[in-house]
């Protein structure tokens, strides 16, 4: 086991942690969603990289090729990509509504507005 054989996992982990950092460290809601999208793409890499066989080809049966890369992760990740964009669209719709309700999309200001509202109601 050398560094080169696990290089793909290293890249995946770097992207995953970067996405996670953007989600938890940045207050702007749209940027959080972008960080979430980055996190999701790192998971795609996590699934597809182990399926690749060096010397193989894309999993389309054709004469002349004997070794194919694994098609099963491709199927799962295809579904995951489409579901990911669906959730991104829903998240953005919610952000638009938040913006219309609070007039801001910074998480700190929204929390402060909520706390002020609670204080006023008490």
């Amino acid at each position, binding site marked *: 086991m050398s560094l080169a054989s696990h290089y793909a996992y290293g890249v995946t982990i770097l992207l995953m942690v970067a996405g996670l950092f953007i989600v938890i460290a940045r207050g702007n809601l749209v940027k959080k969603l972008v960080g979430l999208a980055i996190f999701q793409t790192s998971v795609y890499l996590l699934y597809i990289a182990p399926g690749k066989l060096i010397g193989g080809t*894309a999993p*389309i049966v054709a004469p002349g090729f004997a070794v194919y890369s694994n098609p099963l992760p491709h199927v799962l990740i295809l579904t995951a990509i*489409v579901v990911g964009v*669906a959730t991104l*669209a829903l998240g953005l*719709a919610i952000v*638009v509504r938040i913006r219309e309700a609070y007039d801001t999309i910074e998480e700190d200001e929204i929390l402060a507005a909520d706390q002020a509202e609670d204080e006023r109601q008490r």
Partner: protein
Amino acid sequence: MRGDLVLRVVAKLFIPFMLLFALYVQFHGELGPGGGFQAGVIIAAAVVLYALIFGLPAARRLVPDRVVESMVAGGVLIYAGVGVAGLLLGGNYLDYFVLDRNPVHGQERGIFWVEAGVAVTVSGVMLKIFYMFAGRGRDPEDV
């Protein structure tokens, strides 16, 4: 962007090719990369391009809201309908072998219709979401 001549001409050249490419991707999904999802997204992207260059009301006239909404639901119905057809013809739900006398042809038929349903729903949803987002900022003037 409505008045810019270069953009209008280039868009008029591009959009038919994009739609043609989407159809190619859809039907060629069995022989090469492609399939329903990619084709649906490319169709939606072509209409989005039209809306960006010629304005949202023109796009709404070209692909009205009713059509888009029926596409959104229709694709899922096509997919489920293939499954029910499998039931009615004597097999299990979503069983493609019974769709034709030759089971392999039945598979191909089933896959064709299923991918078509997927493409219809995906393009409908992407386009509808774009319409909702783009129409929200300036709603009172043009619907």
